[in-house]
């Protein structure tokens, strides 16, 4: 039951740098992420949050630096030295990626149940009845009525689509989930429900999460640790409530003061 029982990090990030031509995306970012830890990346628009998240999740090769990940067998592997097959297996099973725009993370023209079931088939589940019942169970866990299982997500509201995207990602019991502004673009009451759901699922499943958000209240509620980015650099990091309540850097103080209460 204890937080962070293991002593070995799940992810080790060493001096990750990404340029777009001569423009800096992110520069010299290093950190470790432990099992069960939720890390929030915050900062203004254009500060490099998405660039970093994409580098971490092997969606965008860094210009320099290295990222190591602890595989299920316990070995530490350099992500950019995996074979394409190994990398795809990781992305399909051990990892999740929750996009701000649910349409990017879902298949919009197949049913909700199939969206969830598909990831299960990717990990080798072949029994139709099992797939259907697991999908149904996950629809319940993300609070979608099971009579919507055969509908396709185009008929879902924004909040429902986002919850379905979460179910699709979590059904394979990933160990690490990346999220890019998962509550962005939703209205406030819908956001609160989604956040509460995420908070519970992350704790129940003991997930490690790297979440990009510009909303400090989201970071406060979900994350253990926070990294503040500006112009591609990490300028301050630490325990979430410490950084938010006792910010040290001028930019972090500005960020914290520009919201009324977080």
């Amino acid at each position, binding site marked *: *039951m*204890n*937080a*962070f029982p293991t002593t070995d990090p799940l992810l080790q990030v060493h001096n990750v740098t990404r340029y777009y031509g001569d423009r800096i995306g992110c520069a010299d970012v290093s950190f470790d992420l*432990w099992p069960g*830890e939720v890390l929030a990346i915050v900062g203004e628009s254009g500060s490099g949050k998405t660039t970093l998240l994409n580098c971490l999740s092997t969606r965008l090769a860094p210009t320099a630096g290295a990222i190591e990940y602890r595989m299920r067998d316990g070995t530490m592997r350099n992500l950019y030295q995996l074979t394409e097959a190994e990398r795809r297996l990781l992305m399909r099973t051990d990892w999740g990626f929750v996009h701000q725009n649910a349409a990017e993370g879902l298949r919009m023209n197949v049913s909700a149940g199939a969206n969830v079931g598909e990831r299960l088939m990717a990990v080798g589940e072949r029994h139709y009845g099992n797939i259907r019942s697991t999908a149904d169970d996950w629809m319940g866990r993300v609070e979608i009525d099971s009579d919507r299982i055969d509908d396709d997500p185009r008929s879902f509201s924004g909040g429902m689509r986002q919850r379905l995207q979460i179910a699709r990602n979590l059904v394979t019991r990933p160990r690490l989930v990346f999220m890019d502004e998962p509550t962005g673009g939703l209205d406030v009451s819908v956001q*609160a*429900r989604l*956040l*509460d759901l995420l*908070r519970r699922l992350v704790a129940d499943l003991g997930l490690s999460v790297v979440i990009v958000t510009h909303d400090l209240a989201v970071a406060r*509620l979900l994350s*253990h*640790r926070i990294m503040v980015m500006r112009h591609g650099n990490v300028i301050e990091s*630490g*325990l979430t*409530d*410490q950084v938010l*309540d*006792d910010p*040290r*850097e*001028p930019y972090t*103080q*500005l960020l914290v*003061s520009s919201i009324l209460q977080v």
Partner: protein
Amino acid sequence: MPVRLYLNNVGKSFTMHLQGGTVIPVVEKVEFSVNAGECVVLGGPSGAGKSSILKMIYGNYRCDEGQILVTAGDEIVNIASAEPRKVLRLREDTIGYVSQFLRTIPRVSAEDVVAEPLIAQGTSEEEGVDKARSLLSRLNVPERLWTLPPATFSGGEQQRVNIARGFIAHYPILLLDEPTASLDAANRAVVVRLVEEKKAQGVAMVGILHDQDVREQIADRIIDVTGFSAEAAA
């Protein structure tokens, strides 16, 4: 009784970059220890730095200078330099904190808010909620509120939910920041009894208590924080 908490030469100031880099010195050379079963009360006027000291012990504020040593099982941890995950671990099993205000979590019922720290320590959900209900009832929170999220409760009701949450689990060290501020006499008396029970269990407590009555009943020792005033020492 063994020492549970030791502050050694602790100093803290705030640099306000948005106000032209003004430095607000808060405290300097803070030095005291707290034994198991003892309740130390921090005294001094508003702004003296009492809450800041509690927040440093909890790892919520950074400690700029000195050490904050905490006994955790058979280990001694310096909060001032501990890694975030170490601090979080200590908050789960070693240091409890009752703040002045409840930070509400959307959609979580009062009884679940209260039970959470106990469940996090490994107690079953059923037993956790049972104990939460009995504490809420001791603190006279009306039963019809237990299953509702506290966001819409009155100030005093929220404060009692907060106290129940702070007292439900066993922490060897417990920090209290004005826990009785918005309570009536009957509920203040409940808090006094809760503190006495913790003392009997050997819990080391540091409290800030403006209420003279409550303070006299529970303080074993009063430390005047103005003695650590950074300006005075300068």
